[in-house]
């Protein structure tokens, strides 16, 4: 039997829906970790089923709880709006049509004051599983299943080999890797899913390279 008993007996989560509640918390939390902005205002564009049955499933509270960093089984999810007020985080929901995306999808835009910091789009694909499909215009496929590096860099020869050589120095195996760019010789980004946790030291060393603009991680 290749299915774990804990896939059946679990997850332990806040109800009522693994896709509309638990998945929404995880999606928003993963999004905010991947960009790591210091935001004080966030908007959620709700697509299809997230917009239609979101309120009744607490999707709105779940998304706010997620950007506040709460876990799927935190009993404070129901108090997410109150927690946001206490931390001076403002938020807004609106309905949007995200063409071609899964019906439980959201577009999250982070702001500091009036300044827009960045946009993340993702989907809750069932059973609490998620994918992050887009970060600031870069197409991604992040599932929050492995420790993940999200790096923005200059589109220049040798940068990718610099990154992978540091990982290999620490004997960290790469599970998947995707590189994409906005414009030739200008901005690019890569998503690297790893088999091991990412030590702080690696992040520090990557950030020392002046062709690397930012390094964000999800460490499991």
């Amino acid at each position, binding site marked *: 039997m290749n299915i774990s008993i804990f896939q059946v007996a679990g997850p332990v989560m806040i109800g009522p829906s693994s896709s509309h509640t*638990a998945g929404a918390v995880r999606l928003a939390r993963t999004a905010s970790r991947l960009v790591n902005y210091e935001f004080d205002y966030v908007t959620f564009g709700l697509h299809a089923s997230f917009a239609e049955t979101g309120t009744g499933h607490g999707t709105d509270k779940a998304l706010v709880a997620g950007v506040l960093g709460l876990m799927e089984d935190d009993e404070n999810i129901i108090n997410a709006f109150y927690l946001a007020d206490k931390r001076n985080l403002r938020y807004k929901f609106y309905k949007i049509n995200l063409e071609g995306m899964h019906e439980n999808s959201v577009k999250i835009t982070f702001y500091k004051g009036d300044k827009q910091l960045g946009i993340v789009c993702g989907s809750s694909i069932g059973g609490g599983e998620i994918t992050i499909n887009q970060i600031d215009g870069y197409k991604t496929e992040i599932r929050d299943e492995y420790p993940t590096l999200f790096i923005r860099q200059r589109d220049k020869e040798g940068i990718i080999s610099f990154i992978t050589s540091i990982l290999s120095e620490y004997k960290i195996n790469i599970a998947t890797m995707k590189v994409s760019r906005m414009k030739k010789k200008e901005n690019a980004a890569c998503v690297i899913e790893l088999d091991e946790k990412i030590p702080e030291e690696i992040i520090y060393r990557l950030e020392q390279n002046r062709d690397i603009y930012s390094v964000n991680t999800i460490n499991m």
Partner: protein
Amino acid sequence: MYSNIKELLILTEKENKSLSEIILLNEIELSERNKEEILDDMWLRYEVMVNSANKALFESADSEGNLIAGIASNHYNYIKKSESICGSLINMAMARALSCSEVNASMGKICAMPTAGSCGIVPAVIISVAEEKNKTKEEILKALLVSSGIGAVITKNATVSGAEGGCQAECGVAAAMAAAGAVELYGGTPQMAAEACGLALINVMGLICDPIGGLVQIPCAQRNASQAVNALLSADLALAGMKCRIPTDEIIEAMYRVGKKLPMELRETALGGIAATKTGKMLGNFCDKY
């Protein structure tokens, strides 16, 4: 190794081990964790189940847009105050199942078993039988291993999603899992556990998923209560020696096929069944839309 109920039963005979032992050994190999870690993890989940099965008995889990607030405490008060038709075991099982559903609907903490919508059935049955028969922690853990091991086999060979297979696949499978667990808790044979699983699925074959307003409330809570009772009676039928005649694997396959044949309206879309009644539609419209 096993991939269906028949192979699981053959293994128990060949290795001269109980169902729970075979399922535990498989999990050890699959997860690369040891026995203690797995049992500790299961017990933590059981504690979440116990809390959600008790919580709404004493305080109504009232929250915004909750159509089922107060149903568990109402039922619990009925058991305490009146002579019921079904007696205390069945009524307590129903009250506990309702409590889990109510906690789930009000954004409380639950353990999906196998899903959030059907999270009340296995806890209601295992807690109620264990309480009635003064079962130990070790015995309860064995029952939970059997329930979730049977659930894993059904997940592999069919589906546990209401959107895919209707309520029979969610609450029905939960009842099948609970029935097998109850047989284990009562000391029945592996064959009896398998029969109980099959009987529970036969009893619920074809049940549609028709949540009002698309919310996991009505009839989900009521189905949690009724499927807890289905699990208890299926366990008793199997313990009495009843055979399904149809092998459990074939029943699981039949359930899956029936699920596939259900039209989209009857699979968690709120477009059919009681969700599509005049009052169902009216109740479903309460939720604000952006």
